[in-house]
């Protein structure tokens, strides 16, 4: 176990917890389009986000032991566990993003630190700093084509790929965990801007926001 100072960022006190989009729902609303909707938008709020840094071989062993999925070594790769609830994404040759269900991030960090011992690595809990916006529906790709500079054609962006790129002038992570689902990982401070951009860009498809 390393001597790094860690702490659980989730409090068990009665402080109300708000997602990064709580403000946006109050100010911009959450349109419902019903059955005519061609794009559905949903925030997957409060998930656990960890950034792993270090050598691929050392981290891979630890991650496979603790999480049961192997670290993607290929650039732009995104892997998930069988349930699809836990994922690891390649961000750079020595950096990965791990997303796990709410509340799992601190136990996971602790287990990884125990397993990694004195190896050369870093783990940062960034759960409070970013959020996941999920985009589904038949017009999802059309919507992305208006907003990201990256080529989202299925030939160029197959399932299991994720990139850090520019979405509406903001730095975001765009990933495709399944055939019909796209995810944007956005900074908390950009969340309102991105949400309002999405509402505007998706208005023509009859956007439906699930809360």
């Amino acid at each position: 176990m390393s001597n790094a100072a860690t702490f659980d960022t989730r409090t068990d006190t009665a402080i109300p917890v708000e997602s990064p989009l709580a403000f946006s729902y109050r100010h911009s609303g959450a349109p419902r389009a019903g059955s005519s909707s061609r794009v559905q938008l949903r925030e997957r709020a409060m998930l656990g986000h960890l950034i792993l840094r270090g050598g691929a071989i050392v981290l891979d062993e630890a991650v496979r032991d603790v999480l049961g999925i192997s670290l993607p070594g290929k650039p732009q790769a995104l892997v998930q566990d069988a349930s699809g609830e836990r994922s690891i994404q390649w961000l750079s040759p020595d950096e990965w993003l791990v997303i796990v269900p709410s509340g799992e991030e601190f136990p996971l960090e602790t287990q990884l630190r125990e397993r990694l011992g004195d190896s050369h690595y870093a783990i940062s809990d960034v759960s409070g700093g970013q959020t996941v916006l999920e985009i589904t529906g038949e017009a999802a790709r059309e919507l992305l084509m208006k907003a990201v500079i990256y080529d989202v054609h299925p030939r160029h962006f197959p399932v299991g790929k994720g990139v850090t790129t520019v979405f509406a002038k903001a730095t975001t992570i765009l990933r495709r965990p399944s055939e019909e689902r796209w995810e944007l990982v956005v900074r908390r401070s950009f969340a309102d801007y991105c949400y309002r951009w999405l509402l505007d860009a998706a208005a023509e498809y009859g956007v439906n926001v699930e809360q």
Partner: protein
Amino acid sequence: MFYIYCPYCGEHREEEEFHPKGQAHIERPKEPEACSDEEWGNYLFFRNNPRGVHHEMWVHAVGCRKFFNVTRHTVSYEILETYKMGEQPTITADSQKQPREAAAVSHQEGVRA
């Protein structure tokens, strides 16, 4: 649309994701204390400004955020190759004096229009 090949991401990416960071292959003097003022001044402030082939450092700022090297032609702006930090260019001003085909054989193109 202008694409640059990132050697770490292993694919061509939009120019908007990159930033240039000046001349590449500048080595910090091993013993700064032993440098003359002129040597230290040259290291800190003086840069090449060639007409033709130039080796530059770029960063994939929105992306993998890694620094890498670019061999670029300062007249045509053509990117002749990109390569990782610590590696040496295969295309240089000297190699460019020979016929182009010989130098560019089997090499990863740096840019695609």
